């Protein structure tokens, strides 16, 4: 909001130090955004200040001057209304009826009769233009001048266009139309308060006037309105109509009901001065009850305790008085301050403490560290586990991605066909009109982005929330997902690079699963869902689905404009995050070395390694410490529908194992493997 240095000087003496003034205004809560112009130049200095919504009293020059007067400890010069002696009676020319007194607590008006509408004098035009407002004519400019001077929005009507010279303040009728000053036809609803005559609506109360009663060349009699409208009604009305005006900005933040008459008088006098005419008197002033002045007490000791700094009782009182609080009682315990009517924001003691703090200066408050004994310190288990999941994937060579939670519903359904995405009611764009139910579409976009930029290797993961509808409302679920495409990263010149395959994605899932201390989730290789978006093994925990690993369906990839195979996994972390910590115990180290035997088996494709391994463990008379796959071969010498799989069996017993015992175990294991459909291709011995 723009304020002219020269205009402020009408009300307060100021040094010629715009930078210093800007700094001081910032320090009391009117932050300077920019300074324009220089002292002594035409138009002078303009301050652009950010005036917060709780300070409508500072949305005008007099209000900012009041803060400056308090800062500098100098008097504030209030503009005199300058109304001349009594004129014609207002009541002879106008009647006011308030049909919604709770929404318009006060409505005052005067008329100026016999005006000559014309251009404003140079001084007035310059003042308004310096603030970035267009000069319209002497009558309208006079009201805008008063708005920028003291903050009260005023509205002038062409009195002769008000039917029967009767003003009615009422809610609009459903479907009622009004052409506002900007030429737009507005369809109204009872949410909006209007100023009407007995025939039709003339203006949107507190928002904008209407074209029909606008001040134009040839207007001779002016009806000048100065009123108080309910903030919520103005705000709702303006929002509903998609409007925001200088008037609505102030009314919705709370106008000063006591500023109504001074502003009315000031504007009426100014109109008479600029456009001639006679001001009617006394003003009509219709109000429903009056607001009692608020009294708030301040305990200086409490202020000092809350701030951690004591400016002293005398200084507190001085600050309040400079800001026009009247200190009514000053006992040993507390000061009782009468709140000026323009301070809509002051309701309780802490508000007065803020007044003291900002004028005593936040800089004066020392820095200390609090000594708080915190019972619930540290990082909760859930966050520790999420970090552990991220670390596992980072260590496996995956780089971390962060995508928006907002997603396109159709893309989510590709991976979660059973889940209905939760809708965003007011999306910015259709591609982000729902909440994601899966992490994969976001990661696939990232794959496309990287491949399109010529990157050869993409290995990304994300740990984040997805949102599913639940019986008691939306459920936020933590998940992890990873994608891999293109070449494997260059690990070393001595080993080649390979095209991404299922085992990259499976490896990532395995790395994550092994980091999930206390989780019962595992890869279920025999649960391959034909036609699933990910063609590969399922992830299960206690028989419940917990995700999937596999190659992304090429049809889906085409949708993302990806022309290379992509392998991925997605896993639910929620059950694990909620699970109790598993206790870890030590296993004694074996006292004798283990015995290793390699087996090459021809295994039918219908069999999983898990099944084969389970059969071998079942059949072995000796304890099997591990069974590891070290090769898989398809091709010459292996029948179709089969693969040759080389396994290393590690036996570990309490005693040294004799070769015969090991051979007996191998025989038993092979017998069982053969019953399951595998057969021996050859044995090797280490």
């Amino acid at each position, binding site marked *: 909001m723009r304020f002219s240095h020269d205009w402020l000087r009408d009300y307060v003496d100021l040094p010629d130090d715009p930078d210093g003034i800007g700094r001081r205004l910032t320090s009391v809560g009117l932050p300077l955004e920019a300074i324009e112009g220089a002292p002594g130049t035409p138009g002078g200095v303009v301050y652009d200040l950010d005036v917060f919504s709780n300070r409508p009293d500072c949305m005008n020059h007099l209000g900012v001057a009041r803060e400056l007067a308090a800062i500098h400890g100098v008097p504030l010069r209030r503009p005199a209304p300058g109304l001349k002696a009594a004129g014609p009676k207002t009541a002879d020319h106008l009647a006011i009826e308030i049909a919604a007194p709770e929404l318009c607590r006060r409505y005052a008006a005067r008329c100026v009769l016999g005006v000559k509408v014309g251009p404003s004098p140079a001084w007035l035009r310059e003042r308004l233009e310096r603030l970035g407002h267009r000069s319209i004519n002497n009558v309208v400019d006079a009201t805008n001048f008063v708005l920028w001077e003291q903050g009260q929005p005023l509205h002038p009507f062409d009195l002769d266009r008000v039917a029967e010279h009767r003003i009615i303040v009422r809610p609009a009728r459903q479907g009622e139309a009004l052409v506002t000053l900007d030429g737009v036809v507005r369809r109204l609803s009872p949410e909006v308060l209007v100023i009407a005559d007995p025939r039709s609506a003339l203006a949107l109360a507190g928002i904008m006037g209407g074209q029909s009663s606008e001040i134009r060349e040839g207007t001779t009699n002016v009806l000048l309105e100065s009123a108080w409208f309910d903030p919520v009604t103005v705000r709702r009305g303006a929002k509903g109509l998609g409007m925001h005006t200088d008037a609505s900005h102030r009314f919705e933040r709370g106008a000063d009901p006591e500023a109504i008459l001074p502003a009315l008088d000031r504007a009426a006098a100014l109109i008479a001065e600029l456009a001639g005419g006679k001001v009617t008197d006394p003003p009509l002033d219709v109000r429903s009850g009056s607001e009692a002045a608020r009294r708030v007490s301040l305990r200086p000791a409490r202020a000092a305790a809350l701030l951690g700094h004591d400016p002293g009782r005398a200084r507190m009182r001085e600050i309040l008085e400079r800001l026009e609080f009247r200190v009514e009682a000053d006992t040993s315990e507390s000061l009782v301050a009468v709140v000026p009517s323009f301070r809509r924001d002051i309701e309780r003691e802490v508000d007065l403490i803020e007044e003291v703090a900002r004028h005593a200066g936040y800089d004066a408050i020392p820095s200390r560290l609090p000594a708080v004994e915190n019972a619930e310190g540290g990082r909760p288990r859930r966050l520790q586990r999420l970090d552990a999941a991220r670390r596992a994937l980072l260590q496996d060579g995956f780089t971390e991605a962060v995508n928006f*939670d907002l997603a396109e519903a159709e893309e989510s359904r590709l991976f979660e066909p059973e889940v209905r995405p939760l809708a*965003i009611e007011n999306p*910015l764009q259709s591609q982000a009109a729902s909440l994601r139910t899966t992490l994969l579409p976001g990661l696939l976009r990232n794959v496309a982005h*990287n491949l399109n930029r010529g990157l050869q290797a993409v290995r990304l993961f994300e740990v984040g929330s997805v949102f599913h509808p639940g019986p008691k409302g939306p459920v936020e679920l933590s998940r992890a997902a990873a994608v891999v495409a293109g070449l494997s990263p260059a690990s070393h010149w001595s080993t080649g690079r390979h095209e991404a395959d299922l085992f990259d994605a499976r490896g990532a899932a395995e790395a994550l699963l092994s980091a999930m201390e206390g989780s019962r989730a595992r890869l279920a290789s025999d649960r391959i869902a034909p036609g699933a978006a990910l063609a590969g093994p399922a992830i299960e925990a206690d028989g419940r689905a917990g995700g999937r690993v596999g190659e992304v369906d090429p049809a889906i990839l085409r949708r993302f404009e990806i022309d290379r195979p992509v392998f991925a996994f997605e896993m639910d972390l929620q059950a694990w995050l909620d699970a109790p910590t598993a206790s870890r115990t030590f296993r004694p180290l074996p006292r004798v070395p283990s015995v290793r035997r390699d087996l090459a088996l021809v295994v039918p494709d219908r069999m999983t390694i898990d099944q084969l391994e389970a059969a071998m463990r079942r059949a072995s008379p000796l304890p099997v410490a591990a069974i590891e796959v070290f090769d898989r071969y398809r091709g010459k010498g292996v029948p179709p529908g089969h693969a040759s799989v080389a396994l290393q069996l590690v036996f570990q017993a309490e005693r040294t194992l004799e070769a015969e015992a090991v051979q007996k175990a191998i025989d038993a294991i092979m017998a069982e493997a053969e019953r399951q459909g595998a057969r021996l291709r050859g044995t090797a011995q280490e």
Partner: protein
Amino acid sequence: MQERVRDLRRDFDAALAAARDASSLAALRTRWLGRKDGLLTALLRDLRDVAPAERAVAGRVVNELKQHVEGSLEAAAGALLRPGAAPSLPALEASLPGRRRQPGAPHPLAQVRARIEETFLEMGFALGEGPEIETDHYNFTALNIPPHHPARDAQDTFYVEGGLLLRTHTSPVQIRTMERQKPPIKMVAIGKVFRRDPFDATHAPMFHQVEGLVVDEGIAFSHLKGTLERFCRKVLREDVRLRLRPSYFPFVEPGAEYDVSCVFCDQGGCGRCKGSGWIELGGTGMVHPAVFEGVGIDPERYTGFAFGLGIERIAMLTLGIDDIRLFFENDHRFLGQFPG
């Protein structure tokens, strides 16, 4: 016999000269001294066939050879352990890249988050959390922002079906924490927040915030200053200065925004601080008594402070990033610049 021993000795010396490492020495030892098939073992065995008259002499030369072989192997093995004994490595080989595991890079926002978390954990804070889908109550009303309050304008909200919304700030975590836990409270929560802002270089519809809350008896504005000062110095630079200026957030009173002295120009004036010498970091203030009343904490007995700041903002400042969109494109060339 003596002739045979001489030949064997020559063979051994040649083989020893060729042996350069421990494994070839071991092979040599097996070949010559092996219990079953070692050359010397065989020679000693053959000694039995030597005529008794010559046996004494033959025995001596064979024994000498045995001592020579054993001693030489011993000496050669010892020499291998001495520094400088390794065969010389060509410079080219030495210059080839080594073999190492290549971990992925944590997201820069996660790195900043971790640094902030560590700083607050060191200061004795607990880490908290809250849901991303919120109710109007937690996001606004309980924070002293009733319906139709103008402060809602500053936080354009995404609404979710069923009368819910995406939280516009992490401040709802303050309410959830105070409902769950009685003072003393000392917590920070970091998470995603959402604003209905168009996606451009400085705005994103989703970003990350840090929320802090300290509540106890006797907590003052000076504690807020001390805590933020410590935090900024740890996370940004040891010598930054902190500035608080009055501001307005309905859930704090007195309210403030806090700035740090510009880390780019040391307050000489530059583009990043728009010549002001200060960089705006976030909002803070003393918890509003109305907020305490809403969660059943007696504002006469307890006081507290709260603060917030944006992770993206800190990341952009500390890493010199000028476009927020880079964080969400997940371009490997960007993410790879910040290995953990």
